[in-house]
């Protein structure tokens, strides 16, 4: 659909885009992302010729945009900008049907299209068609901004940080709506943002740019799993990488729980538990295979009757455990569902590799939500 071939945009003092090669297939939603000044917006604006490349060519459906009349070209391409830019002197209806009007659609068809679009995003045309932009909230205004870009049924839409200026709630709902619209209409979309969450949420493919160059082109999943280099990884953010690996139970367990051997004396066990400030220890054999557990109360109660931990350890019923291949979610479900205080993690040979406690679970969740808490 869109093809960038050796595209360069150089200004007097710096090069905004260095030799860009990129192909965007029909129907794909591509997100260009990168820090400010990485050339993402320049790249976008070269498609509808708001910016002319210094060298190289851009093709839309195999037509070189350079050979097309820019005004005619732009009418075939939907365009949404961050500052929304609705025409304040026009009603919502007039705003949406600007391009159809420029293209000379008959009035009847234009009206039908406006009503259809408004209904598509759940805005009652009877209420909104004749309002003015300043009578709408920011989120509603940008919803109209998106509809305006869709009005003439363009095969391609360019969106330049369209939701960047909205409040988080409006942003979220517009993202959902865009995703929805895109999956229904399948219009090729180039979307610029600096918000990684937005990119991961919306993109079929993410194009990470830095200093005028493409660093990585990948699906959101690949991007998270295999960032091409440190730049991409740091741009994705440590939190998100952690958040992603929350999928494995290994990431939320305490890797080195307090353990004792069955031969250990009770006094020694009690001293260890005091030192480590725990109320329960796991009992393992020489190969660190899990045998059972001992609570501090049992130790206290039985210290006259027994000599070693092996004699008093709790083996029946056997402890609920989880395999290290399991997902974090399974561990959460087990702990919450069975009201466990802790959940030992075993590898395939029943060797103890870690322990999930309510504490470790909460702190893993907290770091996924707020970033690395207390580290």
């Amino acid at each position, binding site marked *: 659909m869109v093809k960038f071939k050796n595209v360069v945009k150089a200004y007097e003092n710096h090069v905004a885009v260095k030799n860009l090669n990129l192909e965007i297939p029909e129907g794909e939603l591509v997100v260009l992302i990168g820090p400010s000044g990485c050339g993402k917006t320049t790249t976008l604006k070269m498609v509808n010729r708001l910016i002319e490349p210094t060298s190289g060519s851009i093709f839309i459906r195999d037509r070189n945009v350079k050979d097309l009349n820019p005004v005619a070209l732009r009418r*075939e391409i939907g365009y949404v*900008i961050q500052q929304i830019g609705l025409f304040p002197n026009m009603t919502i209806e007039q705003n949406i049907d*600007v391009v159809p009007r420029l293209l000379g659609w008959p009035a009847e068809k234009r009206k039908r299209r406006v009503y259809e679009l408004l209904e598509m995003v759940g805005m009652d045309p009877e209420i909104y068609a004749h309002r003015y932009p300043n009578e709408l909230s920011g989120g509603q205004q940008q919803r109209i901004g998106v509809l305006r870009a869709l009005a003439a049924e363009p095969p391609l839409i360019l969106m330049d940080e369209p939701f960047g200026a909205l409040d988080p709630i409006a942003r979220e709902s517009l993202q959902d709506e865009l995703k929805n619209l895109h999956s229904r209409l399948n219009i090729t979309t180039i979307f610029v943002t600096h918000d990684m969450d937005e990119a991961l949420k919306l993109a079929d493919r993410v194009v990470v740019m830095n200093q005028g160059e493409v660093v990585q082109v990948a699906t959101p999943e690949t991007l998270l799993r295999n960032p091409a280099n440190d730049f991409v990884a740091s741009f994705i953010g440590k939190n998100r990488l952690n958040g992603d690996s929350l999928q494995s139970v290994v990431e939320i367990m305490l890797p080195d729980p307090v353990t004792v051997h069955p031969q250990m004396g009770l006094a020694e066990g009690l001293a260890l538990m005091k030192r480590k400030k725990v109320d329960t220890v796991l009992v393992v054999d020489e190969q660190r295979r899990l045998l059972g557990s001992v609570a501090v109360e049992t130790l206290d109660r039985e210290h006259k009757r027994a000599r070693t931990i092996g004699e008093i350890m709790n083996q029946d019923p056997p402890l609920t455990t989880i395999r290290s291949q399991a997902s974090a979610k399974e561990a959460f479900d087990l702990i919450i569902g069975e009201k466990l205080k802790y959940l030992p993690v075993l590898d395939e040979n029943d060797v103890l590799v870690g322990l999930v406690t309510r504490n470790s679970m909460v702190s893993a969740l907290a770091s996924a939500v707020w970033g690395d808490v207390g580290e």
Partner: protein
Amino acid sequence: MLWRLRFGVMWVSDFIDFIRSNLDVAAVATYQHLYLSFGSVLLGMLIAVPLGIWLSDKERLAEKVLAVTGTIQTVPGLAFLGLFLPLLGLGVVPSMTVLFLYSLLPILTNTYTGIRGVNPAVVEAGIGMGMSPRQLLFMVKLPLAFPVIIAGIRIASVYIVSWATLAAFVGGGGLGDPILTGIMTADINFILMGAIPAALLALAAGWILGMVERLATPRGLRG
């Protein structure tokens, strides 16, 4: 106190009698005055509005042009008339020329700043959606700049209506005529016969154009 009040009442009734007997003079002067001032504002509009639009994307040139019209504004009106005397002689032509030049600055400045003041996001949206420069001007820029342009015309009109009294000095007629007569004959009645209608005309022009300004403001831009 009572004496002064009685004197005032007597004077007012004298003045009304005076106007009554000179009504034809007052009417002619007012007509000439309207003709002079609105003629020059109209001319000013015809030149300054298109010029302001044309200059709106030529910042450097615009600065120079605005500096020139700004300088014109600082020349005292009477001196200006004197300067044009050898060129254009006496009568309506030099009067209107000077008034026209004075009307340029407010209209030009407001047109220029009005168009420049249109939200760049709106302009970018218009261009990005495929409006030609002409469509952008007529569909977006002019409607949005219109209230500012009208405000410029209103300012110009109010000024010009009062400055048009100067035309009397070069035989251009208007409400300056009775004022000048009044000054030369030390007759306050004549001065007031020119000054009062001139002031009323200025007020009326300001009021009418203020209405137009409000009506011209797109609904979407009103508070």
